């Protein structure tokens, strides 16, 4: 995977907006091929707008690191917005969708980005809940307390959700606690486990196999299918981790519905 906040964020700023098709039922608004805060702000601005003002014929939108993909219903677009395009394109849904989105992009210039939501996540570090905390500490020549300190002192930005329901790609982890993936992935990692892989940290929302170094576990549920939205985190959020004791973890787990 990528390393948000790493070298990709620097020099090459070809983040001019363009619109391209994804198959015959979606289009992608994209800003270059690198991960940066600037680009993320553009992604958020468009996502927030589409959330508040979905247009007729839009099925859904999916934000990613440097793009927003918009799924559309071609027939509905033809019925609603054909007048936005030349006569020969009135039965060409992609051209119509592009015209609708281009119009939205022009309006967006004057809309400020909403302040990010801050979500605090309690983590019980080490022990059987975080069996690789020592590995991460040794790899970086740190004590386990120092790893916890560093991990809990940063603000992490949710660039996007993907890979699994509610899994957040977080940017902002210190390189001082980076650690390579395990050579043999574990067959099942329980939901709530907090891990590190390379320069990235994340929380597993559902039981999954995986090769991350596991440093702790949160009693907070990140994915609750009965709720809408079904996930604790959303693209654009800021995440802060804070340490809790094993006793607090067990009490929290005990109160779960």
């Amino acid at each position, binding site marked *: 995977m990528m390393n948000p906040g790493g070298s990709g964020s620097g020099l090459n700023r070809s983040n001019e907006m363009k619109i391209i098709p994804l198959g*015959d039922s979606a289009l992608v608004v994209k800003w270059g091929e690198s991960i940066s805060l600037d680009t993320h702000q553009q992604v958020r601005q468009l996502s927030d707008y589409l959330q508040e003002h979905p247009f007729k014929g839009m099925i859904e939108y*999916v934000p990613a690191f440097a793009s927003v993909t918009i799924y559309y219903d071609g027939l509905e677009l033809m019925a609603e917005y054909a007048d936005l395009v030349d006569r020969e394109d009135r039965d*060409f849904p992609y051209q119509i969708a592009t015209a609708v989105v281009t119009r939205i992009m022009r309006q967006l210039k004057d809309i400020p980005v909403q302040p990010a939501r801050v979500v605090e996540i309690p983590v019980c570090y080490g022990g059987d809940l975080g069996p690789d905390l020592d590995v991460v500490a040794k790899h970086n020549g740190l004590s386990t307390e120092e790893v916890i300190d560093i991990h809990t002192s940063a603000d992490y930005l949710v660039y996007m959700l993907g890979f699994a329901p509610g899994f957040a790609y977080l940017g902002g982890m210190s390189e001082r606690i980076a650690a390579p993936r395990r050579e043999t992935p574990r067959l099942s990692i329980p939901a709530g486990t907090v891990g590190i892989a390379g320069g990235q940290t994340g929380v597993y929302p559902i039981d999954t196999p995986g090769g991350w170094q596991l440093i702790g576990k949160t009693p907070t549920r990140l994915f609750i299918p009965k709720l809408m939205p079904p996930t604790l985190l959303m693209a654009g959020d800021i995440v802060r981790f804070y340490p809790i004791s094993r006793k607090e973890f067990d009490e929290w787990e005990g109160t779960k519905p």
Partner: protein
Amino acid sequence: MSLFVNKPGLLTTVQDLGRFGVQKYGVIAGGAMDTFALRMANLLVGNEETDAGLEITMLGPDILMEQTALISICGGDLSPKLNGKPLPLWRTVLAPKGSRLSFGKLRQGCRAYLAVGGGLDVPVEMNSRTTYLRAGIGGFCGRALRQGDRIPLGAASLRCLNLMGLLAREADGDFGAVSHWSVTPGMLPPYSPNPTVRVIEGEEYGLFSEESLRSFLNEWYDVLPQSDRMGYRFTGSKLTLREKTELISSAVTFGTVQVPSDGYPIVLMADRQTTGGYPKIAQVITADLPLLAQVNLGGHVRFRLISLREAQKQYVARERAIRTLRSGLEQLQK
């Protein structure tokens, strides 16, 4: 009222057209593999196209009708039978209470869709009744059907009751009745064990070597046994990029043809993840996804390149034909 599962078959799941609006949370869309067949089955029994039916894979179930209902089976031909007598596909059938629906030999395709008047009334989770097998969510208890399951049916719509009335006059004892109306053969996708599937260029199409593009568009690719509802894996000539390229993750969709570093293409299907980071060489057009959904393991597929404009022409034509069929069914009742 309900369907009772005497035998579950190989992989029988409750599916609708998918879970939309939650891909931004990382939740997969899922839904029927052959959405055309499910939509047709639903229309033929007077349901909404978005109602839930059963997706039946390769080896069919044995089902007891615990109430009289309209049923329709569309898609792959798994030799369906009602009380032992063969049933035709793409038609409306009045199945009396106590009748037994079973399946036999796989004759064409690999997935049949069963719609029942009123739809399967399992709880809606995250905007859909589709079964999300890996997460154990939706459908019937989040899993494939098992022996002894009782699947509740929803209330029949007025359209459904009208069609039932039409067929009741022709009913023949415990076999029920089969409609004289059907989906016209000309409207069906050209299902084949070895189909030619039309694609449009993917975002990274131009980054592949000329030789790779030639192979991809001219040679046969074989469906590997590791293929499933998530994706079809193919073997054939390797596809390579002109130079190594690092991509960041972005949305992928039903029919996206991506090429991991081993060079063998994967076509993402109904249960694909929401985002991916492999180069996308092509995208199967919506109109041809049913062809792929009915290809069996070991089948051969050839990809043919068309323009986006042509793909959308096909899409619009298909959607209009479905609307015409829908209003035709409504006319029948007048």
